[in-house]
């Protein structure tokens, strides 16, 4: 428990130091672009694939579990939309990203730690917190963009699976999509997403930055980082949901 508090304290000190002494702008800018490429662009493929198919599965599952003729068919579209916007895209995708982006961040910073590259930067007088972590945080501010794509493709996947599989008609599904749309749900989803993005950028950085040991420990640190990032996302999710939706 004391260890845990120590970690939390060091984590916040890290965030503070990250904002202290800024790296030269043109250097920083190039780092940000590279992180956008690695963290955001590099994740589009996997997110699109997963969203499309999970959207399809969610829609089919809803359809076959609503065999009761009293239930209107347009509920399939409705359920798909709600699931995608409220939970699947923001939360589920973020946990997948904790595996992909998170372990990438931990292992790349961790490798720099064990090969003394971080020491080398520090000896030169670079604020390593700002140099290594800040560009990731900035890059992750456009993470909601990934989630928009995920929402869209998830719903489209649901539509595609239902219509081609003959579970609902085109008009039923679209009617369902338009049913009782609450714009605040989108706000809720994006507030969540933004908070998850900050978790995804900083907790894995922390695990990489403060790791000790050699190559083997880099692997272990990535695993630990995945666990803690997911836990933080899930706790943050229930916290935000309680705060905003109830």
């Amino acid at each position: 428990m004391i260890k845990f508090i120590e970690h939390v304290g060091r984590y916040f000190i890290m965030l503070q130091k990250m904002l202290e002494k800024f790296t030269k702008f043109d250097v920083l800018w190039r780092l940000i672009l590279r992180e956008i490429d690695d963290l955001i662009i590099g994740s589009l493929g996997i997110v699109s694939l997963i969203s499309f198919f999970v959207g399809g599965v969610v829609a089919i599952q809803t359809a076959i579990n609503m065999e009761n003729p009293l239930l209107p068919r347009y509920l399939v579209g409705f359920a798909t939309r709600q699931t995608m916007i409220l939970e699947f895209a923001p939360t589920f995708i973020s946990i997948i990203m904790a595996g992909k982006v998170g372990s990438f961040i931990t292992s790349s910073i961790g490798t720099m730690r064990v090969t003394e590259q971080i020491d080398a930067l520090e000896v030169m007088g670079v604020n390593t917190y700002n140099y290594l972590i800040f560009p990731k945080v900035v890059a992750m501010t456009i993470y909601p963009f990934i989630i928009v794509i995920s929402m869209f493709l998830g719903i489209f996947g649901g539509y595609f699976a239902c219509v081609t599989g003959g579970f609902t008609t085109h008009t039923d599904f679209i009617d369902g999509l338009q049913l009782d749309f609450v714009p605040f749900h989108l706000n809720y989803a994006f507030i969540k997403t933004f908070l998850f993005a900050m978790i995804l950028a900083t907790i894995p950085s922390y695990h990489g930055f403060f790791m000790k040991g050699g190559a083997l420990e880099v692997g272990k640190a990535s695993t630990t980082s995945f666990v803690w990032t997911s836990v933080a996302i899930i706790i943050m999710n229930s916290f935000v949901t309680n705060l905003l939706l109830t």
Partner: protein
Amino acid sequence: MIEVTKLSKKFDDTYVLKEVSTYFEKGKTNLIIGQSGSGKTVFLKCILGLFSPESGEIIYNKTPLSKMNSKERTKLRQDMGMVFQGSALFDSMNVEENIAFPMKMFTNTHIDEIRDRTNIVIKRVNLINANNKLPSEISGGMKKRVAIARAIIMHPNYLFCDEPNSGLDPNTAIIIDNLIQEITQEYQITTVINTHDMNSVMEIGEKIIFLESGEKKWEGTNKEIFNTDNKSISNFVYSSELFKKVRKIYAKENK
């Protein structure tokens, strides 16, 4: 000139350095020798300010490190070059970018001039046909050269090398040692080198400090080291058959 007074450092509850005092002069290659685990790297990292010592002081040209504010420290850091034990090149950058990094980072020098300076140091350390290669694509000896080039591009007043020739063949090791010594004299740098290589000791040991379990057990020059009757240093120096023979020859010559 760097002065170290009564430097102690502990990890958890064990002291890794115990009241080490010494000084390093400008234009000289100062060596820290000792067995693996004797505290050489920790000592160097304390001097650099990467570790903060429990007690003792490190004084750079009359200013104690602990009295410097963060601005002065940053300024001092830009006056230091460091060659790490594993070279510590940035693996996302090619050779040229690695070497130019400190200049791009801390100066507003025009890109053409940075390129000129980079090429000068690349020539100085005899790196041939490697400008666009990544660290993973070059040999250990070349990595050391890149690390040295990166360390000297800002014309530092202090150069630190952690086992600059570990993992190199004897020939390359001597070339790297001599390169460091030449650069030290040419630019009048205060150079501190960690090593456990007796060849380096003979070649470039203008001043030698011997560490054993974190304590300074001996201090002197490479001329003196073969004549001392200090027990711990004899054990270290004459641990190999080759150097036992060297001692005999030395003794004969000096009769």
